[in-house]
């Protein structure tokens, strides 16, 4: 299998606080990795480092050719970024920004770009929201718009940070099935969640993080591991 991302001995301190310690793992093509762990375990920090939002980490991160060439990491941030209901932007305007990574110079959109926006909206079943103002949409709809923005440039890997924490269970399930479909179409997915129960049906691998890696492997192995016993000991009391 082809590795999308290889991480070796990644360390990150926030002041004197050790946030990530000796993190080493590989992301293979087609993986669907659930990154789980308690609050403050460094999940968000880890993906922010991968996304280049946090720069002064120590260690090695290697992206494969595809990601480097096409600058193609799709990113879906934690819940709706905008709490500003007045923000004047239509769904189309927001989704199109996902294409800017491919553009140089003045970065104007072409007709072709707008048809790619249409195709992505269609795929996620939100073509009817195209000209709606983002602030007037429900939480689930907004999250799909942000997924569309991440997907519009056809990235080979998608990184999501607690994308469903603000959603109802039903809408959350819908959102996860869309991700599953994308994964079946060969998009590699890394999904951060604090709630393993809601993602266990979908993911193929689990990365259990608590400042260092407690467990990394297939979901099946995880179910029979010590890490899991500890995890469920804390979370469900079983």
């Amino acid at each position, binding site marked *: 299998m082809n590795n999308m991302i290889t991480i070796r001995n990644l360390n990150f301190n926030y002041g004197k606080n050790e946030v990530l310690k000796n993190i080493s793992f590989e992301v293979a093509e087609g993986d669907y990795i659930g990154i789980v762990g308690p609050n403050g375990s460094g999940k968000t920090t880890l993906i922010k480092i991968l996304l280049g*939002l946090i720069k002064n980490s120590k260690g090695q991160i290697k992206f494969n050719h595809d990601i480097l060439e096409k*600058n193609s990491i799709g990113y879906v941030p934690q819940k709706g970024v905008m709490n500003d209901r007045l923000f004047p932007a239509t769904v189309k305007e927001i989704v199109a920004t996902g294409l800017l990574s491919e553009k140089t110079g003045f970065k104007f959109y072409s007709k072709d770009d707008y048809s790619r926006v249409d195709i992505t909206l269609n795929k996620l079943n939100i073509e009817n929201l195209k000209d709606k103002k983002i602030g007037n949409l429900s939480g689930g709809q907004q999250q799909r718009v942000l997924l569309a923005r991440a997907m519009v440039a056809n990235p080979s890997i998608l990184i999501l940070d607690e994308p469903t924490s603000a959603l109802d269970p039903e809408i959350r399930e819908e959102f996860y099935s869309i991700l599953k479909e994308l994964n079946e179409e060969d998009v590699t997915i890394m999904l951060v969640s604090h709630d393993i129960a809601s993602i266990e049906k979908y993911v193929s691998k689990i990365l259990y993080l608590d400042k260092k890696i407690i467990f990394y492997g297939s979901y099946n192995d995880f179910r029979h591991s010590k890490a899991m016993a500890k995890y469920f000991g804390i979370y469900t009391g079983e």
Partner: protein
Amino acid sequence: MENVISMIMEALQSDFILRAILVGSLIAICCSFLGIFLVLKKYSMIGDGLAHVSFATIAIALLLNKSPLVVSIPLVIFSSFLILKLNEKADLHGDAAIALISSFAVAVGVLITSVAKGFNIDLFSYLFGSILVISKLDVILSIILSAVVIFITLFFYNSLFAITYDEEFATVIGLNSKNMNYLISILTSITVVLGIRVVGTMLISSMIIFPTVTALQVSKGFKDTILISSIISVSSVILGIFISYILNFPTGATIVIINAICFMVFFFINKLKSN
């Protein structure tokens, strides 16, 4: 009524009114183009802060007997960088950095004016605007610089939009948000200095903020907002120039009051619609 029409006709025949309308409208468009980014990035006060800075720079220009426009633009741009740097390096919150720089600049301005007596009347015209007495050089400079601001905003529109909506995402897809913030600062500095001619240092921030906030009451998309706010802004300037000419009011203050009235009207339209 006939009287008013004949006065408007008369006004339209005088060069200074036409010049005022041309320069005022261009600056109004600059203000609308930038206002949306400043308001939505929660940088509204930067316009106000830089206007205070320009009070000092104009005092310096008058002291040295140089053109206020030419002296002010680089100094105001420099101050805007200082504000950004203070934000980045000194762990200051956005508006604290603005307050530091702007109050310091006003103090410098006041010191200069009191030491060098004699240009108080001149300075007053810069405090509250004097678009009806604008020199040829200022007209030409204003037209060129407004065009520069408008075109640069148009060229970088998509990147500016992405950064305003979600700076983190914009960074992930490879946009340089830091550079874009500097670009916004430069353009705002130029616009603030140009706007001093129209409404004065005390009132320029209202030209940047009012039309955008008014447009936000009714707009849906980003481009609509810019379009609506430009229309409001230009109409306020033109209407303000005529009203002040006919009734002998100060032009700058009249323009701002028209803007305020527009805001109230749109605000109530929005409230009625959402009920």
